[in-house]
């Protein structure tokens, strides 16, 4: 049986091999990320049935918990690392053809490091280890945002780096408080003793941790970097940042709030922050004329919805939030990837430049439409059952306050629908701008290496949307993994 530690070790090893191989022979380095992620996908699929029965605690140094660092391959960890591997694989295939200029080998190194960081974050059971993987993810994404080296890329990379570095310092400060209070870094051990400390002391450490991880999760007051960073990065990086990186931040917040500290009153804060993030994100997206900035703001809105689902702090709410994590990762990756070659062909990110794209790049436009409809939440796409689960979870509370919040969330969806329909209309029903028709012959559809991942993502969105049971079977155990503190402590510490 393969060990979950390979999920981290193999991409990390490949990340070290890539620049060495790049010195000798640069061409094959572009296939390494795809190979690593394909390996992770297979290992994740092999592990999934086993961890659903019994979570697998990996002792990396041979000492029994709570000493040394452990990996906890539970349903949530393996399910999320599968999602990371799947989106990572498809984006890596896309990047084989898309990333051709600049330091190609370094791009693939950083890309692998980013995915290693994300995978490590969802698997680790140690608070400081979580921070280390978090920093791996952050540092490689700072560098990747500025990869193209143009003005916008460097400017947004600087902004992202400053905010991210301060956020990481806050996380480390929070870890210092936790270690001072509990004398341990094992998440299960902290969770076991958290009740014996006065709530005020606990509050200080949790405030630092949630704020620090919240910067990467892009919740409302901490997301000023996101629209710049996600819109200035190369499209393949935007896809992975929107699809995976912010989800890793949300995962860290959820793990700290639910598993380590055990709900309390923090979910209420998450609820309010989630709704505000949703509204601000969707309304800012509505007023954008730049397609990539629009998609970045729409990511903020979707993160708000995910945080709202988590804030409900019920099993169905967390299930809905996890469903949304999957649906947004697939749909947003699809949107950024399909729009990548449209921008490449037209040389402009303005929405007006995309008029009539439905005729020039029919497959990309169709896939973009599928992704947009899925994000809005139209059936038969994956976004519909995901949003439906969250709204149902809010109504289940049978409380007028929650019903009002659900209504606000639906209002956000209406705004979302308005701007996505505007783009879909522009793609399919508007006449192309002057001069574009003559270039039609040479500037056709995107190459096959880009169309394959885009079509696969679109097919997945439709398939899971038509038959959500393939996913919902795993969401219940994954949500319990996050919420059931006693079981988490039991699996790791055996008490």
């Amino acid at each position, binding site marked *: 049986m393969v060990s979950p530690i390979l999920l981290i070790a193999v991409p990390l090893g490949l990340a070290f091999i890539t620049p060495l191989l790049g010195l000798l022979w640069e061409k094959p380095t572009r296939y390494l990320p795809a190979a690593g992620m394909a390996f992770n996908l297979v290992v994740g699929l092999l592990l999934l049935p086993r961890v659903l029965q019994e979570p697998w605690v990996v002792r990396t140094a041979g000492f029994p918990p709570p000493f040394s660092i452990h990996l906890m391959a539970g349903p949530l960890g393996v399910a999320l690392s599968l999602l990371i591997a799947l989106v990572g694989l498809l984006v890596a295939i896309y990047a084989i053809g898309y990333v051709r200029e600049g330091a190609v080998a370094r791009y693939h190194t950083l890309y692998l490091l980013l995915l290693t960081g994300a995978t490590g974050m969802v698997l680790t059971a140690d608070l*400081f280890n979580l921070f*280390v993987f978090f*920093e791996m993810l952050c*540092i490689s994404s*700072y*560098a990747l945002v*500025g990869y193209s*080296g*143009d*003005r*916008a890329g*460097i*400017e*947004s*990379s*600087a902004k992202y*780096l*400053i905010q991210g*570095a*301060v956020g*990481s*310092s806050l996380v*480390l*400060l929070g*870890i*210092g408080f936790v*270690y*001072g209070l509990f*004398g341990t*870094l094992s998440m299960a051990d902290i969770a076991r003793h958290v009740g014996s400390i006065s709530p005020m002391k606990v509050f200080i450490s949790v405030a630092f941790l949630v704020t620090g991880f919240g910067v990467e999760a892009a919740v409302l007051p901490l997301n*000023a970097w996101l*629209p*710049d960073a996600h*819109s*200035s990065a190369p499209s393949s990086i935007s896809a992975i940042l929107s699809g995976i990186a912010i989800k890793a931040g949300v995962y860290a917040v959820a793990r700290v709030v639910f598993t380590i500290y055990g709900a309390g009153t923090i979910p209420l804060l998450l609820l309010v922050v989630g709704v505000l993030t949703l509204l601000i994100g969707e309304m*800012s997206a509505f007023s954008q004329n730049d397609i990539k900035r629009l998609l970045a703001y729409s990511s903020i809105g979707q993160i708000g919805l995910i945080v709202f689902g988590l804030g409900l702090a019920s099993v169905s709410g967390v299930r809905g939030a996890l469903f949304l994590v999957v649906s947004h990762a697939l749909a947003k990756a699809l949107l950024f990837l399909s729009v990548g070659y449209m921008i490449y062909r037209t040389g402009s990110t303005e929405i007006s430049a995309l008029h009539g794209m439905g005729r020039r790049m029919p497959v990309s436009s169709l896939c973009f439409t599928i992704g947009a409809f899925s994000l809005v939440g139209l059936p038969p796409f994956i976004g519909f059952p995901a949003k439906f689960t969250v709204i149902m979870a809010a109504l289940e509370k049978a409380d007028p306050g929650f019903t009002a919040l659900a209504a606000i969330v639906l209002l956000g969806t209406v705004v979302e629908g308005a701007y996505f329909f505007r783009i879909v209309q522009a793609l399919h029903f508007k006449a192309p701008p002057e001069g574009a028709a003559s270039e039609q012959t040479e500037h056709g559809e995107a190459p096959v290496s880009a169309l394959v991942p885009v079509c696969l993502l679109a097919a997945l969105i439709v398939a899971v949307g038509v038959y959500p049971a393939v996913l919902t079977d795993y969401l219940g155990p994954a949500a319990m993994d996050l919420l059931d503190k006693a079981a988490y402590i039991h699996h790791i510490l055996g008490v």
Partner: protein
Amino acid sequence: MSFVADYLHYTGCFGLVLIGLYIVLVKSNLIKIVIGINLIDTGVNLFLVSVGYIQMGTAPIFSEAQAAGREMVDPVPQALVLTAIVIGVSVAALALSVAVRLYEHYGTLDLSRVRELKW
């Protein structure tokens, strides 16, 4: 006053963190901001080490502590700080290389004049 004297090491590290935060928030020169980030890092690292410090403790080497008949300081925060220092250095290196590229593009390191992207 005795509180400050008893917890002088904590006062010192949080003082450093606050000075760093002030620099990051107020200064607009990227190099100064990088220095501010480094000050925050240093403050946090000192905080981590002082969390594991014991009055009159020796270095965490088992045989030496026994021979001296004294308690050892906690080695775990020191291991954490080693890792955190490495992370801090790589962030600083990346930030400085971004500063170089920023200067190439804009001819200035003043971030208040580098604002082509807006909300």
